[in-house]
């Protein structure tokens, strides 16, 4: 048997899986986006779904909100991850235990953690409202998921919470991989901690930072459970991202054609973003000397 035939045989099962579950549905989504498919049947209607979508000012709000949601959440995750990893990297007694305590959000079903947050945000009995009242910071109960702005930022906080442990542990591992000689040389030269962090730690772990940023960005863009369980996209659309909007149109209202057009837009936006980012990643890797 030739080497290439053997290679392709080994890959075949993976291709079959991806073909059935990803590639074929993707082709179908594109086809459906040109139809008015619903439970009743489907007719070819050309670009009508897209025309309707792009003439709807609300849709631009949703696109803008999705990118804002993604950027804000990813930046916060990276910042939290850097802070957390630096703290856990400090040589203090108890660090082994602290590292274990970061893990729980990572190893439970996301939906379960979100149910906990939903309670925290509750205005009647939630801890956040209760503590704010006890401290006298607010007069009345604050129902964080009930007003537009607070609901959006509450969802961001929950998304950051879901992503923080993984980012933290990856950064921590990268920090531990940085050669001690670099730090020692800098230390001998009298460089302080902050200087060593900025000039050694950050550049050394930069490849990990940028790859975690891309992964987090894709996950956050596609994140469904968090918003769906907290607010189902409300109040009055304040937390409706592209994914939520697509789910509502396609599954809740069963307007398959219109939903498919939204799904195609998501795929195109993510593809453009990823290509852009990979180009950037390449530059970063060159600059910092990683392969």
């Amino acid at each position, binding site marked *: 048997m030739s080497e290439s035939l053997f*290679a392709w045989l080994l890959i075949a099962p993976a291709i079959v899986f991806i073909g059935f579950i990803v590639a074929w549905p993707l082709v*179908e989504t594109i086809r459906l986006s040109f139809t008015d498919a619903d439970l009743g049947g489907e007719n070819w209607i050309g670009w009508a779904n897209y025309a309707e979508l792009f003439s709807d000012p609300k849709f631009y709000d949703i696109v803008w909100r999705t990118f804002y949601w993604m950027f804000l959440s990813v930046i916060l995750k990276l910042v939290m991850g850097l802070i957390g990893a630096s703290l856990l990297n400090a040589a203090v007694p108890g660090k082994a235990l602290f590292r274990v305590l970061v893990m729980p959000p990572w190893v439970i079903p996301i939906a379960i953690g979100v149910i906990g947050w*939903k309670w925290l945000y509750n205005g009647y009995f939630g801890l956040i409202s209760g503590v704010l009242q006890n401290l006298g910071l607010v007069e009345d109960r604050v129902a964080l998921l009930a007003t537009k702005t607070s609901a959006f930022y509450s969802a961001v906080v929950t998304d950051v919470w879901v992503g923080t442990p993984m980012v933290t542990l990856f950064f921590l591992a990268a920090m531990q991989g940085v050669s001690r000689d670099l730090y020692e040389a800098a230390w001998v030269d009298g460089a302080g901690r902050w200087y060593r962090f900025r000039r050694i730690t950050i550049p050394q772990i930069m490849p990990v930072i940028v790859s975690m940023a891309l992964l987090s960005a894709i996950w956050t863009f596609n994140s469904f*459970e968090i918003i769906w369980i907290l607010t189902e996209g409300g109040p009055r659309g304040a937390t409706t991202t592209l*994914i939520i909007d697509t789910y509502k149109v396609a599954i809740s209202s069963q307007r398959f054609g219109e939903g498919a057009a939204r*799904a195609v837009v998501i795929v195109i936006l993510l593809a453009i973003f990823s290509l852009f980012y990979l180009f950037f990643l390449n530059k970063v890797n060159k600059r910092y000397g990683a392969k």
Partner: protein
Amino acid sequence: MLMDRYSLLQKIGIYIGIFIFLLFVLLPFIEMFRVSLRPLDHLMTADFTWWSNDFSFQAYRDMWVTVPLLGRYILNSIFIATAVTIMTMVVVVPAAYSYARLDFPFKSLSLGLFLAVNMFTGAVLLIPLYRVMRTLGLLNSYWAMIIPGVAFLIPTGIWLLRSYLEKIPKELEEAAYVDGASRMYTLRRVVLPLAVPGLIVVATSVFIGAYAQQFLFAITFNNQRELQPLPAGLFEFIGYQDVTWNQMMAAALTGVLPVMLFFLLLQKYLVAGLTAGAVKE
């Protein structure tokens, strides 16, 4: 060593920082536990208090009555994640070997296409996926939650395992070939035993992925209660008018406990393995 020494003030600062960071990470768990200890009527009517005298573990007994299928949900979650992990590994191992060791046309293009799958989630492809599941007659079965899960975890699995396999020295395989062993025999008897640590790490990461995301496919492709995984099963109760919150929280905490304990006990090995990709560069 001297460089690592902190002044007392710095030490206090670090501990305060760690405390705040861990408080954020563990806050929902702390709150879920607090809620699970309080009687329902007190929970809803009384003003917020940190501590109260009526704490009890009653909800941990009552929940089995309120959520009769709770035990089933917990097992379903573990079963689905395990099945996804096994199927994913069966598909990933040969493919990863192929990418690590063999040379064939369109190698990097096809690997790139696999990785591009990471850009999609089930949510984008739900409509046709629903039809595929219906056509295959898989709706309302475990398969409806297992098969899509496998597909979306394959690309990362291939990527991770490939980098492990690349680190195994080639000489052993070459020796096997010289002795006349077939490719398949070499893969099974030489490469796989050497790759066991890597296999464990990749399987763990697949399991975490499969366990964390048991919601969308479950609420969309399955309406059979006995088959629901924990998150979807509990979510149904939260939709009711009178939610017995204390019991829901008790159920949620109890439900995640087995897997969480498993990971916390093994964390030393897992974190090192899972994040190995981060250090490699």
